[in-house]
């Protein structure tokens, strides 16, 4: 016998038991229910009937129709009955709701309340519409087409629809509960062997949705959102920006951050989350991945509580910034898992979530696009890309130290805030070339024409520019802070202590002076970057999704 057949028979057995148990209850409650129904119908009749001559009275198991020739003056007469047959579908409805197993009682009560409410409205409509029919002989009604249609409809309800309604309502409501016996995945962890897939197939990411806005300063071949090409489906955000510009946008964002108490939250993030929450309410057993949990997560945590979906968020900022951005227990408690991009972030989440809900998955890079040049540049050019979390004071000091030893070294600084940063503003020299607004191809060309990449960090987890430079086969000289060591490994470059300009300058000069060392580092850099290809890292993300989806919901 099929397991589903067993479940079906068990369901039928439970239904019969409940049906038999509540049947006597129905006879006790029918008079009261009829009075309730009659009273409700009388309220509607008093509004629609002019003059008001019809009154309904709950009478034992029936509802009597009392009609006064002149409203409430002359003697009244009972003109018809509407039977209790149509109301009995309450019992069928109740038994259907109570029979399935393993459904949360709150959810069950909610479904029962909605279902009985719908049936009550149906009974009321039937009563009001049927009044005319119950007061006149059927043959009289057949005199006109409207009358025939009228009788046809009432007969349809009596012979077919009254009993069919509970089944249809139940099926419609239980699409959200997903517990029709023998169909679909069994709720919670019932009969679910390890690795069992079903509709929530963890190995495919068809029910994984990525939520978030693109970081505008990222190259189109870089950024965390690039994972959407390999896992899940990206939910289109209503706005393509986070904060916008102008006074009005500033005011709106201030209100949003004040209300959410989230210093980095924005109107764009709120609308994106709102759209995702709406999507979430219409789906179940899906996984939603907020790709920038640091700045774009507030609403979905609450939405997740209302649905049977999973919520995962990736955090990119170093621990000190996570603290500053109020990524606390309140903000993370509704997450099924957090994804970190560097081991160095773990320390922040240790007290917030149990360890099995914290995963470290490295960031990715497009090693197909960012690739080494066919011929390695023989010019003494160092490249530095990006401005976030950079220690430009140490960097400018290091540049000056380098020039004291080798004045021929040139620097290409891409996307650095050279007009805003005081240290960079002082770095006015023909050997420093500031570049902004490069296309992806121009950026790649800039990497490919450089000898090495320099990264002077104040703090870091992972860095798109670092991965791009590694993918282009550049030796790296970087500050040993945050996740840099994790990504760089031991052979791809030189790591320097934070704030140490001498070490940074020495590292650059060492690589530039030793072509053999530079070649070894370049090869190691490229080899290491290949392991961070989006496709490979996406597999690790899928494993996280798999674990989260297979874990019980609550």
């Amino acid at each position, binding site marked *: 016998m099929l397991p589903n057949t067993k479940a*079906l028979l068990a369901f039928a057995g439970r239904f019969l038991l409940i049906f038999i148990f509540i049947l006597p209850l129905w006879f006790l409650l029918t008079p009261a229910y009829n009075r309730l129904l009659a009273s409700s119908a009388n309220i509607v009749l008093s509004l629609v009937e002019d003059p008001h001559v019809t009154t309904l009275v709950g009478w034992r198991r029936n509802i009597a129709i009392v009609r006064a020739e002149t409203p409430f003056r002359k003697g009244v007469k009972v003109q018809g009955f509407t039977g209790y047959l149509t109301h009995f579908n309450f019992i069928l409805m109740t038994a259907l709701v109570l029979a399935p197993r393993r459904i949360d009682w709150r959810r069950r009560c909610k479904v029962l309340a909605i279902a009985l409410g719908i049936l009550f409205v149906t009974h009321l409509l039937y009563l009001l519409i049927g009044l005319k029919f119950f007061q006149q002989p059927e043959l009289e009604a057949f005199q006109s087409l409207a009358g025939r249609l009228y009788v046809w409809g009432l007969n349809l309800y009596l012979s077919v629809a009254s009993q069919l309604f509970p089944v249809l309502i139940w099926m419609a409501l239980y699409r959200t509960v997903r517990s029709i016996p023998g169909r679909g995945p069994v709720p919670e962890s019932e009969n679910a062997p390890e690795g069992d897939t079903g509709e929530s197939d963890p190995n495919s990411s068809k029910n994984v949705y990525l939520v978030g806005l693109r970081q505008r300063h990222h190259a189109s071949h870089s950024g965390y959102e690039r994972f959407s090409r390999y896992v899940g489906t990206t939910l289109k955000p209503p706005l393509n920006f986070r904060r916008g510009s102008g006074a009005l946008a500033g005011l709106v964002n201030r209100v949003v951050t004040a209300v959410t108490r989230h210093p980095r939250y924005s109107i764009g993030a709120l609308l994106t989350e709102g759209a995702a929450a709406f999507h979430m309410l219409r789906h179940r057993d899906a996984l939603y991945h907020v790709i920038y949990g640091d700045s774009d997560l507030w609403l979905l945590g609450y939405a997740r509580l209302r649905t049977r979906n999973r919520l995962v968020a990736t955090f990119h900022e170093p621990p000190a910034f996570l603290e500053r951005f109020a990524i606390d227990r309140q903000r993370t408690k509704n997450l099924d898992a957090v994804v970190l991009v560097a081991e160095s972030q773990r320390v922040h989440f240790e007290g917030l979530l149990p360890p099995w809900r914290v995963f470290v998955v490295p960031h990715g890079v497009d090693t197909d696009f960012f690739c080494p040049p066919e011929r390695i540049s023989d010019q003494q050019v160092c490249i530095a890309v990006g401005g976030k979390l950079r220690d430009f004071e140490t960097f400018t000091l290091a540049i000056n130290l380098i020039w004291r030893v080798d004045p021929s070294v040139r620097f290409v600084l891409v996307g650095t805030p050279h007009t805003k940063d005081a240290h960079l503003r002082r770095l006015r020299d023909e050997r420093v070339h500031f570049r902004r607004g490069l296309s992806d191809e121009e950026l790649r060309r800039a990497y490919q024409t450089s000898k090495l990449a320099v990264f002077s960090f104040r703090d870091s987890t992972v860095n798109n520019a670092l991965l791009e430079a590694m993918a282009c086969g550049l030796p790296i000289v970087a500050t040993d802070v945050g996740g840099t060591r994790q990504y760089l490994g031991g052979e791809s470059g030189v790591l320097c202590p934070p704030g140490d300009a001498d070490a940074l300058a020495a590292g650059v000069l060492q690589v530039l002076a030793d072509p053999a060392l530079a070649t070894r580092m370049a090869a190691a850099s490229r080899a290491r970057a290949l392991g961070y290809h989006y496709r490979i890292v996406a597999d690790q993300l899928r494993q996280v999704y798999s674990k989260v989806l297979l874990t019980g919901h609550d």
Partner: protein
Amino acid sequence: MGLVIPQRLLLMKAYVIFLACILFLYTLLRTSMVREYVAEPLAVAFASVGALALNLLSQKATVSGTLLSVEGFSATIDDVCTGIFVVAIYLSAVLAYPSRPMEKLKGLVLGASGILILNLIRVVSLMYIGRYLPNFFETAHLLVWQSLVIFSAFLAWLYWTERFVGAPQH
């Protein structure tokens, strides 16, 4: 890349087909021709087979057209009592559910047979109730059995979708 029809559209289509089939079949069953050539012969057949079953159970039943009698109790079997409307509902559900024609055929034959057999049990049991518990007859006839037959049709449909409808159609 083939055209992917959203699941919601398929669901809507199934609901529309289901409702259209129900309305069509109900209207069809209410026509005098179908009543005369299908419903009434079916009612007579039910009365005859019911009488046969009751006689096998030593109830000394007699039948006259659609009038079925046992000692101390008689009942007329009309078209609603044959379960033909429940079969129509089941038929609509099977036709609406996305499946192959052969699967639909199997579902129709087996499901309809099951519902009709259950209805025969209903008729026989109601004759017993009418004879031994006459006060409970109306309740059993109009309420209890009607609910149980529709529930059994629902179970039959669920079983058909699980057991007979191929996985690619889900």
